[in-house]
């Protein structure tokens, strides 16, 4: 690997690690009651809207859900318990993000797998480009390899030439 490539790869790894740290830490946990209500409400779907969270919806039902959440938080319930109560009435439909288990895990894993696959593909592509258009592994390993009889070497070089002649597309 040449050194600009190494620098580029290093920068990508550092940026990726920084993103991962930020993503893993998530949002700081809110301290005020209003902030905690918002945190719970933003994970719930407003039942009378089209794809709006309870935190964002101005509808009367969403307002009442927010006041219910506030009362439950003040009563010492955890956000997960409160979400569980809404799930009991409305089903998992009420959650804006699918739970991280069962078949719903697919929705969480596919982006990660695609990201990993894309990164691997990009890495391979970079390695291939930096090697140039000559089929390096054959040229460097086989043709100059030690102990090859001169006759074989001629045959091999001719074969390599015929392959590399049709290689550029």
């Amino acid at each position, binding site marked *: 690997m040449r050194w600009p490539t190494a620098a580029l790869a290093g920068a990508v790894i550092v940026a990726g690690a920084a993103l991962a740290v930020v993503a893993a830490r998530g949002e700081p946990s809110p301290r005020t009651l209003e902030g905690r209500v918002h945190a719970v409400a933003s994970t719930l779907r407003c*039942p*009378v809207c089209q794809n709006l969270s309870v935190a964002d919806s101005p509808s*009367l*039902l969403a307002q*009442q*859900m927010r*006041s*219910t959440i506030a009362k439950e938080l003040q009563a010492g319930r955890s956000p997960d318990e409160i979400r569980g*109560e*809404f*799930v*009991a*009435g*409305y*089903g*998992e*439909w*009420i959650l804006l993000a699918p739970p991280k288990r069962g078949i719903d895990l697919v929705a969480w894993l596919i982006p990660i797998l695609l990201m990993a696959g894309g990164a691997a593909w990009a890495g391979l592509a970079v390695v291939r480009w930096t090697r140039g258009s000559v089929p390096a592994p054959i040229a460097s390993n*086989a043709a100059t*390899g030690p102990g*090859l009889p001169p*006759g*074989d070497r001629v*045959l*091999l070089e*001719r*074969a390599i030439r*015929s*392959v590399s002649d*049709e290689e550029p597309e």
Partner: protein
Amino acid sequence: MDPRGPASHPSGLEATGRWTRRRKRWVVLAGTLGGVALLSVLLGFGLSRDPTLIRSPLLGRPAPDFSLRALDGTDSIRLSDLRGQVVVINFWASWCAECRVEHPVLAATWDRYREQGVVVLGIAFQDRPSASRAYLSELGGGWPQLSDPGERTALAYGVYGVPETFVVAPDGRVMFKQVGAVNYGALTDEIERLVATT
């Protein structure tokens, strides 16, 4: 490829290279077509389903208990006190047009089954008590009508909008739910079935 093996003819090598490239192209083509086909099937499946129809998780489950004051302020009713009876719970509002449509169905059900111990309960949803009372004096209906401050009960039952009707079995489990104007045939079939088992 073993460089020490029998010398391969250049044209043989060439053919092998061309063959692998052609195969690679087929693999890519088949992969792309397969991916598109899979996505189309998933998309078709998703589009053919009605996203507004969501099966209530309450069906077969114990009905959330409530103790609610009557609209006229007289007394309150606790659901768990009605254990052993079939209970029809109807969420409605005076501003709801479908509720007017289904009102005669509820009245007919109440008239036909109250002798057999079936209870119909109306719960007002996001309505001013004065408007609810005016609606009832206009349309009539002698079954108990309850007010639900803060919609706590409606939220526990997963109500999206009114009208919504639930049937609770004598053992306290939710056996039936209908969103929208309740159907007389479906409602009475369920009641008959539950009354027969008691």
